[in-house]
């Protein structure tokens, strides 16, 4: 029996973010939150390991009041249980503190063989939580995994690096981060969404993990000073014509008139 903890973060749908034209600030209020794409693939990877090797999957997320709704999808896709850390005192902390809180939660869940996470979350793009957690837990880390399997308590994985695909082996427990290319996450059926609501879910605040939210917060070291979307004006001209040839001719003229083709 392999026990897998999958780390999932809920984020807003990035394609729905509107930029305030006067302040250039991203507006994220009121947007629906979903599990970050790569994280969902980490969960899918866990499910495939479980299907082959038998096991148990616990989903863990540190989030907000909205996290429970977003994480129902994890239970519907195939997580067996869900643990949420929700403490308003921890809102906006950096990767350093997030990792410490997740470490405490992972230890409270206990008995794991494998911790799976995404290469990075699509909102913060920080790519830190996996390696940080490995350091805090004193475990080996296997990052950027695009393929993996379990054999006699050992993990065999293919890591996707810039210059090589690295085939590696490691004894469990270990922290593994996956890339987008590892799989395509399944879409839950209506039935499984119904069943998801009955699966065990626990919600913890900082003190339930033996931590003080104030102390944790004070330990945060990276502060965001300003968020600003760069201003890029595009002409957004849609070329229309009766025939493809005419459209192509108009486009060719437009490109040439821009003077972007001189060497």
């Amino acid at each position, binding site marked *: 029996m392999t026990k897998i903890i999958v780390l999932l973060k809920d984020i807003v749908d*990035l*394609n729905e*973010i509107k*930029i305030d034209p006067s302040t250039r600030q*991203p507006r994220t209020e009121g947007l629906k939150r979903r599990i970050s794409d790569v994280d969902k693939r980490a969960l899918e990877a866990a499910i495939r390991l479980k299907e082959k090797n038998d096991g148990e999957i616990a989903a863990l997320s540190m989030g907000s009041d909205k996290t429970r709704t977003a994480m129902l999808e994890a239970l519907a896709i195939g997580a067996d249980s869900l643990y949420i850390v929700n403490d308003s005192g921890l809102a906006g902390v950096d*990767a*350093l503190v997030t990792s410490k809180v997740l470490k405490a939660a992972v230890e409270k869940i206990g008995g794991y063989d494998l911790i799976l996470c995404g290469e990075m979350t699509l*909102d913060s*793009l920080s*790519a*830190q939580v996996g*390696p*940080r957690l490995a*350091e805090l837990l004193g475990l*080996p*880390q296997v*990052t950027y995994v695009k393929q993996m399997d379990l054999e006699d308590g050992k993990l*065999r994985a293919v890591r*996707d*690096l*810039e*210059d*090589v*695909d*690295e*085939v*590696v*082996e*490691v004894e469990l427990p270990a922290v593994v981060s996956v890339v987008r290319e590892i799989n395509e996450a399944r879409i839950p059926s209506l039935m499984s969404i119904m069943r998801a609501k009955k699966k065990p879910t626990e919600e913890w605040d900082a003190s339930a993990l033996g931590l003080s939210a104030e102390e944790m917060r004070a*330990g945060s*070291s*990276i*502060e*965001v*000073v*300003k*968020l*600003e*979307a*760069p201003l*890029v004006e*595009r*002409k*957004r*001209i*849609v*070329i229309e014509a009766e025939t*493809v*040839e005419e*459209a*192509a*001719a108009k*486009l*060719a*003229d*437009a*490109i*040439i008139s821009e003077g*972007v*083709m001189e060497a």
Partner: protein
Amino acid sequence: MTGKTVVAYSEDRELGLQILSKGREISDKLGAKLNALVLGEKIIDPKEYITHGADRVLIVEDPALGSFAVETYRGVVLDALKDVDLEVLLIGATKRGKELAARVAAALDTGCMTECIEIDVDEEGRLLGERLTYGGSVISSQVSTRKPHIATIPPRTFKKAEPSPREGEISVLDVDIQDRRMKVVESREKARGDAGLAEAPIVVSAGRGFKDEADLKLLEELAETLGAKVGCSRPIAADLGWMEEWIGISGYKISPKLYIACGISGTIQHAAGIRDAQIIVSVNNQEGANIHEISDYSIVGDIYTVIPALTKALKERMK
């Protein structure tokens, strides 16, 4: 203890030199010494780091460092820096660099700013960083409030300095090499074509609208007509393996005069790589596709008919 120190490291030598140029600026502002950390089996020409800006080169040479393993490297970095009054640690943001930086930051109980596209220090000596967030659509200006400050820097963010005849110190360190638990069974070299995307004035690019690898011929003909380089979206390279390098937040960020996106939907991650293009042109058969929103000129149409027609029209006009 040494005096105030800024340390730059990358396992990619070229990137290491690029970081040194920015590291020099930061060190001068902080009144700190700039150290280049160099790890490997056999270090050649360490003086190059000095002529590119370092005051000192910290060398750890060991057969166990012949190939990068994060557990081993992490221990070596921590050991090599234990007697250093570390203000700032800059690490090259390759995949290996990023996993190393995060792990070292955790060990030092400090923050880390991933993939900074700009860095500076404020009056209090704190490190300021600018980095992309929200999939690449927003620039986040951040401050690291506690030393040691750690940031990773992507390739080609800063230009390496012109070498100058500088004096500096070379120190060979003796550190404990710890064993690694993750064993590498096999290392399969990737075909790594430098497609020349970074510098190309014109780039034409393929997305999932292409049904078959052989169909890329259409795009190659367009590229030839324009004297352009051919790029693609991430799935074309990473899922299908039709090309090696892609354009976007996790690939090449390019700034050509002309970018032509064919059969690309224009997700936020792709858009982040072409923001600095002067003119963006798109061909996509779906009216509501986001790529049209971020283009100067677009045709809502089938790439299989539009691309050949465009190639022909351009050829006629360029005679």
